[in-house]
């Protein structure tokens, strides 16, 4: 089955794959929360439940050779790019079997071999880095594209604007994706910037931008494919604003009390997994039972991955040294 007439290119098996991926990310994040509460993961975590469609739909627009940067809230992108859950858990447990050998932790799930060239703990810092990757492609005439994922709050820091400006004058093959989840830590968007539609921030930089339903994985995907392929064809950068919501608090055990009553519930009514689930059920591609089986299997896999991760060894201080300087 293909999608509706205006989405001709999405095959059913692709939709099912995305369903799988979103479920996997959701359960992964819930497990992280559990492991954090029980002390297996320390420090801090920033979870992305509710934003899975942004990660999955956009990452699916990448082709081999494309790269992206993301943030401390980057588990969704990392998993969508194919990082093993056990490797991700191991990283968060500080084990040498983690993606960054355990030195990075929750804020730095990185895998260069899969195009995941950075998860940054400094707001805004990943954007010019992705632009640099895009410029490398452009200077070498390679048909590759760089993406950068970041939050609504990041659009207030200067580096965002500096990057838009450079991307525009250089017509870099860069796709910038705002996961606008309405909050920067505890601050609602409307308190820290004067507009609701952040896509408008692209206007004076002469960069095309669009506003996308970030809960609809298909919408996310189509918008991103259009941007990525225009970039690949030499059409320059795009800014995409994905309207989304984080179902959990900002980090750790933030209860997110600063949210107006009913807001979270309204957004949860548009849970990206449910939206796709309904669609797949209605089209007959994946029955509710089949969906349930996927969830159960995914849960088992996640649990197993966490168990496996917990067995990983720690890096020795001596081994750590080699991670600082390259030869």
């Amino acid at each position, binding site marked *: 089955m293909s999608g509706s007439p205006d989405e001709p290119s999405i095959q059913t098996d692709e939709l099912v794959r995305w369903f799988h991926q979103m479920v996997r990310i959701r359960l992964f994040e819930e497990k992280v929360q559990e492991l954090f509460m029980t002390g297996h993961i320390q*420090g801090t975590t920033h979870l992305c439940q509710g934003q899975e469609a942004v990660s999955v739909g956009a990452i699916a627009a990448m082709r081999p050779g494309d790269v992206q940067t993301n943030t401390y809230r980057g588990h969704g992108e990392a998993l969508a790019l194919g990082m093993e859950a056990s490797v991700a858990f191991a990283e968060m447990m500080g084990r040498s079997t983690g993606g960054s050998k355990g*030195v990075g932790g929750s804020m730095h799930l990185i895998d260069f071999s899969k195009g995941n060239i950075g998860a940054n703990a400094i707001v805004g810092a990943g954007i010019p880095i992705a632009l640099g990757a895009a410029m490398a492609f452009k200077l070498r005439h390679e048909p590759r594209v760089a993406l950068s994922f970041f939050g609504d709050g990041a659009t207030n820091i200067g580096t965002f604007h500096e990057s838009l400006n450079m991307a525009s004058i250089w017509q870099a093959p860069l796709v910038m994706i705002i996961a606008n989840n309405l909050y920067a830590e505890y601050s609602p968007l409307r308190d820290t910037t004067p507009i609701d539609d952040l896509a408008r921030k692209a206007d004076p930089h002469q960069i095309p931008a669009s506003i996308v339903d970030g809960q609809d994985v298909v919408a996310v995907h189509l918008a991103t494919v259009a941007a990525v392929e225009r970039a690949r064809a030499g059409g320059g950068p795009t800014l995409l604003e994905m309207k989304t919501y984080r179902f959990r608090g900002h980090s750790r055990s933030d209860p997110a009390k600063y949210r107006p009553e009913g807001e979270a519930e309204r957004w949860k009514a548009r849970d990206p997994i449910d939206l796709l689930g309904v669609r797949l059920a209605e089209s007959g591609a994946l029955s509710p039972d089949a969906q349930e089986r996927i969830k159960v299997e995914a849960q088992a896999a996640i649990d197993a991955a966490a168990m496996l991760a917990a067995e990983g060894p720690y890096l020795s201080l001596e081994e750590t040294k080699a991670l600082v300087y390259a030869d």
Partner: protein
Amino acid sequence: MSTLTETKGKTAPTVDVEMTYRDAINLALAEEMARDPGVVLLGEDVAAAGGVFKTNERLPERFPGRVINTPICENGFTGVALGMALMGMRPVVEFMFSDFMPTAGDQIMNQLPKYRFMSGGQCSVPVTIRSISGGTGRFGTQHSATGESWFMSLPGLRVCAASSPGSAYDLLRAAIRENNPVIFHEHKGLYGRKGVVHQGGPPPPVGQAAIVRSGRDVTIVATMMMVERALAAAITLEAEGIAAEVIDLRWVRPLDLPTVASSVRRTGRVVIAEEQVHAGGWGATVISELAMAGIPLHAAPRAVSLPADICVSYSPPLEDAIIPSAERIAEVVRSTVRG
């Protein structure tokens, strides 16, 4: 417990109160805001839910409009604080993590310290930066710096670092009252620590170190979390017959060299305990100044520091391995004293 302190003719009551480091910061902020309507607090989420580390509880309610949430733009809002200061206010800027100070590098390095000078002394810049510092929290490579020495070379700036509730209260009040830009470091690993605060009275003068334990055999110089570890080491060593003097440096700029030097003249030995790389830090500067002053030593000076060539890592055992422990401090002191 309540005593009376003489303050410029007036008697200011001093009360000794036990509280947490977090509450001591909150109290200092509250007192200074009450004292001077020009004191405002700026930063990301400073007015939300008590602040990210709960240091700002009740301040927004008590001082309406004076606890100001900012967008995420450290360089911008540090510049805003500078402009406010030029117009006679006394802003306090919160950096949620010290690691974000480089994001405001221009305002911190080129503007705050130089602004008065470039104007030929026409203005003053009473801005306090609260820099939330340090490791042990498993916050990883980009959220664990103390940054206490990053800006110590800059004329025009002052830098201090609090080791305890008492010093946090004293130093933060001194910083806010100071007519020059001050970076006040508070260690996020210490927020829950309890201790006595001498509430009331004027804060001790800028630039004064404190001898927090006396001893004749060796001088340990430390800041922030390293002070409590140095004290723990000193207790261990006492049982072994080694009497360590512990100096809480408190001010990184200006350095209180007289206090350190006179202690080292007495003990003849010095060990630096620092949660930073030795190169380019206050520890190296202290040792250099002691050497240049020609103070005779019984043993070469030593430093317990972060490794020169390893970043702070998330992995708990690795983080524990690189941040100087009381044991490592004791070990180095022991070898310094025993030779």
